[in-house]
């Protein structure tokens, strides 16, 4: 037995090492987020002022505010909500409540899963081809909202369907047994109880849409506009694209304005996620079944 002796550890020591490794791994997942937020706050906060939030950009965007980008992102998010919520919710209700499990619905589900995996720039090109050129909507809020809607649909459909399915089947049976129609059952029992879950999914999906650059790049985002968009068929500035522009396309850009813009976008998106979280935990506390 001439093998070199390895330093042997007791089972207890092995366990402690294991735990240490796991704790390290989980810390590493949250650490980048904290660093990013802290750094952006540090760099961007000095830029934030009432004027920065409410004024038009000036001096080739090197000065003034980012109001048109903020309002543009707001419009785009709203537009996405208008198109994606009814379609997404309708599809989710169909899949969860009406559709039978057959080849057709399996194909729909497979498509939804795959839609979620398509890179966002592909949505951008598709939106340009379909909405901007073929349907002649031009580079506009309408085209960009529709493109973002298609990208958001898989998130909304799958979270809404999950929320609908989490309502116990027995409630549906009871409701039907009391002479209610399927539609009444969905409207009176299933939807109200699935609503918090649906809202959570909708808001998370919209939050993601609000932060996307690629899908709006070819479909509705403007490099610079001296005025606010006046109709659905106008192009608009938007926070993510504005950020891209001032970071790469404008020489001599003050760093503070860049980080100020990042901060505004971040607060916008994080707020939406926090709202989603609040809805979910409130509903969970109130739920009786």
């Amino acid at each position: 037995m001439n093998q070199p002796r390895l330093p042997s550890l007791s089972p207890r020591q092995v366990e402690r090492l294991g735990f240490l490794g796991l704790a390290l791994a989980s810390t590493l997942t949250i650490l980048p987020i904290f660093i990013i937020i802290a750094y952006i706050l540090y760099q961007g906060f000095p830029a934030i002022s009432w004027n920065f939030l409410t004024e038009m950009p000036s001096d080739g965007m090197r000065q003034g505010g980012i109001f048109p980008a903020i309002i543009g992102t707001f419009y785009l998010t709203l537009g996405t909500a208008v198109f994606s919520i009814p379609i997404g919710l309708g599809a989710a209700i169909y899949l969860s409540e009406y559709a039978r499990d057959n080849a057709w619905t399996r194909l729909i589900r497979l498509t939804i899963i795959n839609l979620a995996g398509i890179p966002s720039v592909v949505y951008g090109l598709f939106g340009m081809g379909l909405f901007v050129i073929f349907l002649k909507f031009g580079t506009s809020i309408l085209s960009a909202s529709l493109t973002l809607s298609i990208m958001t649909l898989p998130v909304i459909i799958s979270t809404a369907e999950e929320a609908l399915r989490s309502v116990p089947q027995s409630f549906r049976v009871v409701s039907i047994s009391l002479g209610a129609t399927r539609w009444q059952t969905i409207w009176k029992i299933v939807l109200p109880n699935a609503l918090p879950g649906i809202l959570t999914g909708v808001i998370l999906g919209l939050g993601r849409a609000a932060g996307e650059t690629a899908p709006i790049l070819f479909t509705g985002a403007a490099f610079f506009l001296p005025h606010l968009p006046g109709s659905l068929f106008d192009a608009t500035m938007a926070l993510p694209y504005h950020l891209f522009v001032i970071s790469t396309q404008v020489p001599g850009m003050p760093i503070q304005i860049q980080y100020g813009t990042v901060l505004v976008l971040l607060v916008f998106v994080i707020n939406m996620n926090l709202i989603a979280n609040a809805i979910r935990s409130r509903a969970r506390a109130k739920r009786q079944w």
Partner: protein
Amino acid sequence: MEDKIIVEHLSLSYSDGTESLQDINLHIKENNITALIGPAGGGKSTFLRTLNRLNDLTDIKLISGKVLIDGENILDPRTDVIHLRQKVGIVFARPIPLPLSIYENVAYGLQMAGEKRKSALDEAVERALHQAQLWDEVHDRLSASAYAISGGQQQRLCLARVLALQPEIILLDEPTSALDPISTAKIENSLEILKSSYTILVAPHSTQQAGRIADDVAFFLQGELVEFLPATLMFTNPRDKRTQDYVQGRFG
């Protein structure tokens, strides 16, 4: 007494091959309590759920024969199932209140049927809760959640919910299997009183319960109706050997 339900050559099987019914023939009398006894999986639930077409929600592979209620074949595809379910109510094994208030649970069926007048709803809710012997316990908190009351109260609420629709037939699928003895006694007591104005079919959760409340007893075994007799005969002098073995507790 009139025959309220006449079942002729009823056969049924599910796509997943679980429970089934084989050529059931049965005459159920009005204002009687008919108990369906037999081991689990014998077809009692399936039979009950056929009577108000609740089976439509599951995957039925085959259904044949006739079920006549007041002379009308309810298996006919043209049957108005909404109307049928208002006329034939069901109480399930576990109390399943809808996630609504006590009042809303009882008023639910009527509201879905289009009743909007507050006075009519109030009246129906109070009457149904009295009939289910629950009014005294909940009359001062009708707007509380139906989940705030005990399991036994919840099951009486489920009975009241059915009664509010003023059905003609009430089906109860092991209604007391999840309840304590006191709540069980209250439900049994309600049924005794209710049978003067309703036709009641119950799958009791024990043979003893069948003995306490039933007028007629049907013995189901593996999808087959083995024997259908008045309760007194069923427990003293059944003709079939399998019935004898079952009621005397030799299997099940």
